[in-house]
């Protein structure tokens, strides 16, 4: 409990920094936000009303304080282009991103753990190189390449899956494979090195000497311990997936957080961009916190050390 509290306190300066940086990004943006908002048809009176409504006539410090106060109330401003509160837009998009993230994480864990375990068991043999090569390739291939390739082959040539997503499970399979393969490499690498480490421990030798079957040694004794660091990494990856997949969402037109951010940049919609960045950053920060706490729960040695 004490660790959680300590970690929560240490998050405060980071959160403040994040809010400050997103605010600075808005301030240095060229062009008057009022004229961007109004477009071509406006009169002087509207400009003045809007300027004071958006607090642009106040000092920078006052603007920052009201911006920060708004964030605490859950108010991220109003989108210039979509004319809706940013908070609403984000909460409309978030379920799509969550669905995609969960499915991709499942695929990443399946490929990553599978490849890592096989590679560790067949260390330095052909299977090791094949499985590790396959999962490491996922990290090196740009995600748009995987996504476009899958779209071309499995949605255009062989029409198994739909070209774009409507939120149904079947339409999320291709994007989830693209995203999951991309994250599988680091899980595979960590699983492999951790399992290779653990397999050299004394208690594994003891188990072997007692005549425990090989597969039982691995799945009953070694795997449990070697997965500790991997689980933390998986939690952190899930958090970063929850923060939206800009490329995957834009290729498969999934209306998630990533798409929202792309639209914000293309439409020069600063409050929306700011809001999505802030939201996703907070998710990452809390995700890492949960990963830390999780590590403490599953590994008593960490708890005692802190």
């Amino acid at each position, binding site marked *: 409990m004490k660790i959680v509290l300590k970690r929560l306190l240490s998050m405060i300066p980071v959160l403040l920094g994040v809010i400050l940086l997103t605010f600075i990004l808005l301030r240095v943006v060229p062009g008057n936000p009022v004229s961007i908002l109004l477009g071509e048809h406006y009169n002087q009176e509207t400009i003045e009303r809007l300027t004071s409504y958006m607090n642009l006539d106040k000092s920078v410090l006052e603007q920052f304080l009201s911006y920060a106060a708004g964030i605490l109330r859950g108010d991220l401003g109003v989108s210039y282009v979509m004319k809706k509160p940013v908070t609403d837009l984000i909460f409309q998009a978030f379920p799509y991103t969550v669905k995609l993230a969960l499915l991709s994480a499942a695929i990443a864990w399946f490929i990553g753990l599978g490849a890592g375990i096989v590679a560790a068991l067949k260390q330095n043999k052909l299977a090791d190189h094949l499985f590790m090569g396959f999962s490491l*390739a996922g990290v090196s291939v740009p995600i748009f390449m995987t996504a476009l390739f899958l779209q071309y082959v499995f949605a255009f040539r062989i029409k198994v899956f739909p070209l774009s997503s409507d939120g149904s499970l079947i339409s999320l399979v291709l994007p989830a494979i693209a995203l999951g393969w991309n994250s599988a490499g680091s899980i595979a690498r960590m699983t492999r090195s951790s399992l290779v480490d653990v397999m050299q421990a004394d208690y594994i030798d003891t188990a072997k000497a007692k005549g425990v079957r090989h597969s039982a040694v691995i799945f009953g004794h070694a795997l449990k311990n070697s997965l500790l660091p991997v689980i933390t990494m998986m939690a952190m990856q899930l958090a970063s997936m929850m*923060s939206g997949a800009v490329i995957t969402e834009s290729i498969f037109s999934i209306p998630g957080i990533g798409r929202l951010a792309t639209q914000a940049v293309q439409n020069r919609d600063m409050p929306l961009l700011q809001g999505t960045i802030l939201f996703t950053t907070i998710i990452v920060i809390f995700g890492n916190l949960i990963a830390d706490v999780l590590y403490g729960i599953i590994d008593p040695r960490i708890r005692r050390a802190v």
Partner: protein
Amino acid sequence: MQQAKAASEALSSGYQEQALAAGIGEANGPKEKIRKLFKQNKLAVVSAIVIVVIILLAILAPVISPYKEAQQDLTARLHGPSLSHLLGTDELGRDVLTRILYGARVSLVIGIIPSVISLLLGILLGLLSGYFGGWVDYLIMRIADVMLSFPSLLLSMAIMYTLGRYVNSIWCIFAALSLIGWAPVARVIRSQTLSFKETEYVEAARSIGVSRSSVMFRHILPNCTPSLIVLFTLNVPSCILSESTLSFLGIGVQPPAASWGLMVNQSKQFLFTSPWLALAPCLAIMLVVLAFNFLGDGLRDVLDPYLQDA
């Protein structure tokens, strides 16, 4: 002063040897370790060769290719691969292979320059943070935390968006990628500075009055070289990937400059009719990134096995 420096250096190297003899470090330096890597790890050798070949191809692009970078041939639009155009032509009849060769220049420069800048920034801030401790350390590390909390793609999108109107898109990418890249470097250098700070040869150097900057840059920094080599080799491909992602979204490199990511972006609309247009630059990105990653992994295994994924 000069004498004091020489003396301290002799002293420090003496201590280093003692430390090495005591088994604290291994008896061979980074150079021998890299030589060993190339003897054992064939994948790393192949990767290094691939990287050198690609750099040469990029430099020699005008000599190799019979076409000019922007040479259009509207009678030969969207042709598939053939003998006269090995990788086909694009929607304006430009030779795809030629564009790939010239694109290599942009992509490599964008991979290397931000990596150099983030390395320099990370070294400076990491050394300051680790050496001085206290509020300097707290401030720098919290800023690093903030930078690391941002989803990097979104942050670079925001930087491209805000700076994009003021400066050339390539300078913008340099700024965005270096701003993101320094934080992991600073963390590694900080933790190493913390441990080297306590060694006897640093104590010795300080006790004979070597200046603080000299201790940091001449006594501590050289010991961080192995990690720096690994961090650099692994940072280059991540910069190339980030650039190609930004360009793919249309907010990275702007035409007429051609990077591989931009080529994929431009060929997106022809994906279902001329898939080779998108495939060629994608494969180029994949090849370079794989080569750097394999080389970096190999280097990490021999130089610094405990360095975490950065």
